[in-house]
């Protein structure tokens, strides 16, 4: 076999997930994959394409519209020696499965004195814009981090999507793999070899001494855009892409805040009870002396995401609002300096590639 450990090609985020799944299933015959639509023509935005053909219908199958029971089925299969990978086209559908997630998946290891492991990976796709509205766009990552026993990952880059999916499938614990729909077409270098990233390790996406911006998932892209813009006006940002939300990489956050003395936590979930709030609380209570100015949270308002094109204008956090907040934290008046950072038009799609409907 040729040594292709450094072979890199450009893949989309969705292709990276597809490749990781193929590689995981080829490497480990105990991995099974199911979810509504995994074998249908859409193949979960292409992410499950070719799996049934490659691994057969007993390991890859569509399922009844029974999110709760099928999560329990995954728990049962896991404690009997399989590694289920489950997929939901929207996180919101998975809310039907909270009993099995919280009372079964998260507990079966601890509650029975370590007799069982529960190696399950559950892919949850988060929608945004294009009228996804109140029940197709919820960013409930904070909910999941509140449950001891669950791991929660939320990659941004295609390479991280691949590595973290492989790591999630390998992990002996239940892992919620949150993928933002607006990232599916993001293209970047992805190692061809199955490389297993570490769950629980953040990535420093941009380096700077002035301000720490902590983000995850899609909002990391907005934070990077803001940081790159701010560089042009002389403000240098550390952008921390959390990648894993539970367990959280506190040392990475503390180290950066120690350097910059300024902390902004950006969160695609609703403000109250958010991950951003937890980050601010922890830094304020444990690293108060490091802070030069009051830390800030940028999260979504405590309002359901509305559907109308008209109602979602300005609804979401964008690079402009991140940069504006950063400028204020640096004692600058934001608006004057933000002229070159307009919100994209139209506001409700991730790019030209997205033509709806979901």
């Amino acid at each position, binding site marked *: 076999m040729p040594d292709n450990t450094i072979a890199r090609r450009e893949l989309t985020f969705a292709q990276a997930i597809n490749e990781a799944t193929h590689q995981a299933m080829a490497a480990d015959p105990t991995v*099974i994959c199911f979810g509504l639509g995994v074998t249908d023509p859409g193949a979960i935005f292409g992410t499950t394409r070719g799996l049934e053909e490659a691994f057969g219908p*007993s*390991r890859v199958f569509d*399922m*009844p519209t*029974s999110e*709760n*029971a*099928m*999560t*329990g*089925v*995954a*728990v*049962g*299969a*896991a*404690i*009997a*020696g*399989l590694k289920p990978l489950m997929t939901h086209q929207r996180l919101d559908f998975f809310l039907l499965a909270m*009993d*099995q997630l919280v*009372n*079964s998946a998260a507990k*079966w*290891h*601890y*509650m*029975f*004195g*370590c*007799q*069982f*492991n*529960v*190696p399950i990976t559950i892919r949850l796709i988060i929608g945004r814009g294009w009228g996804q509205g109140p029940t197709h766009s919820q960013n409930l990552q904070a909910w999941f981090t509140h449950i*001891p*026993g669950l*791991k929660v990952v939320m990659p941004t880059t295609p390479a991280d999507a691949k590595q973290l999916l492989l790591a999630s499938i390998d992990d*002996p*614990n239940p892992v919620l793999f949150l993928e933002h729909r607006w990232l599916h077409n993001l293209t970047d270098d992805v190692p061809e070899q199955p490389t297993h990233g570490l769950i629980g390790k953040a990535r420093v996406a941009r380096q700077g001494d002035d301000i720490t911006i902590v983000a995850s998932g899609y909002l990391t892209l907005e934070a990077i855009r803001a940081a790159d813009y701010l560089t042009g006006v002389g403000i240098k940002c550390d952008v921390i892409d959390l990648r894993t939300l539970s*367990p959280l990489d506190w040392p990475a956050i503390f180290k950066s805040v120690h350097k910059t003395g300024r902390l902004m936590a950006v969160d695609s979930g609703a403000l109250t009870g958010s991950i951003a709030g937890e980050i601010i609380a922890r830094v304020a209570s444990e690293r108060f002396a490091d802070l030069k100015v009051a830390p800030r949270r940028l999260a979504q308002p405590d309002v359901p995401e509305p559907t109308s094109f008209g109602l979602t204008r300005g609804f979401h956090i964008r690079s402009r609002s991140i940069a504006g907040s950063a400028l204020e934290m640096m004692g600058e008046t934001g608006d004057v300096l933000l002229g070159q950072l307009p919100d994209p038009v139209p506001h409700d799609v991730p790019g030209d590639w997205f033509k709806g409907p979901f």
Partner: protein
Amino acid sequence: MTDDQLEMRLLGAMLRLRMVEEAIAAHYPEQEMRCPVHLSIGQEAPSAAFSLAVQREDLAVSTHRGHAHYLAKGGALGPMIAEIYGKSTGCSKGRGGSMHLADKDAGFMGTSAIVGNSIPVGVGLGLALQIQGRAQASCVFIGDGATEEGVYYESANFAVVKNLPVVFLCENNRYSVYSPLSVRQPEGRSLTRVATSLGLTSVEVDGNDAIACYHAVDRALQQARGGGGPQFLEFHTFRHLEHCGPNDDDHLDYRQPGELQSWQQRDPIDLLQAKLLLTNHDLSSEIQPIRERISNEIETAFAEAAAAPFPDLEECMRDVYA
């Protein structure tokens, strides 16, 4: 196994389950078992039957009222009692208590305090058995209340779609806590007919007739192991004590007058003993050594549980992740 041997073994199995629960009830007021307990007194026949028909390689899950099922599957008595005492030697290291029992070595894969919660887990065990090509069955103990949970229908449907080797064993004791079937399901509803309509091979059994229970369970397990698809058994039975706790609660009048008494007259142990007496058994001389053996086993289990240490406090914070 002759009929005679079967009957004596069923009697011994029921006696063991009864005497364990009676010992828990007797010790409970000492305030050393500091967790809720849901006893199976009156409902022993399906479990006793199951204990004789099931194979160690079969798998099982159960509910909050799971002591009898755990023991019937071969779960170790000492660790179960220690678990109820919250001790480090408990089957779940003191983290689960009475409502969260498991003995993986015995293929008893857990119980849940949430009604219906373990149903899909049991179906998932069946999926694993099928994918792994093991000719065994996954057994899912439920009560009548669980058939009112949506997850029961979801799970049964999937088991039928995939023709999984799953046996649902439903002990219909007519009450969900204090709520009778009459306020929960329409008059004339048959859980067996509902199960049949879902596509499960379903049989209704006198759940206080241990012999009938044995033949039904044995047949269902063989069917499931042999690729015959998911099975449903409804056992009509009755719990003698309160829903949760060691006491009689008939004075609360949530049951029909005389209802408990009529079921007590059909106590599964008494019924089988009466049948054995008809065949001229010298029962007292045969039962006495069985009772003594069980008593000794129970006394040892309680003494060891009482003597065992609590887990170290640090155990609380460990093992959140595998």
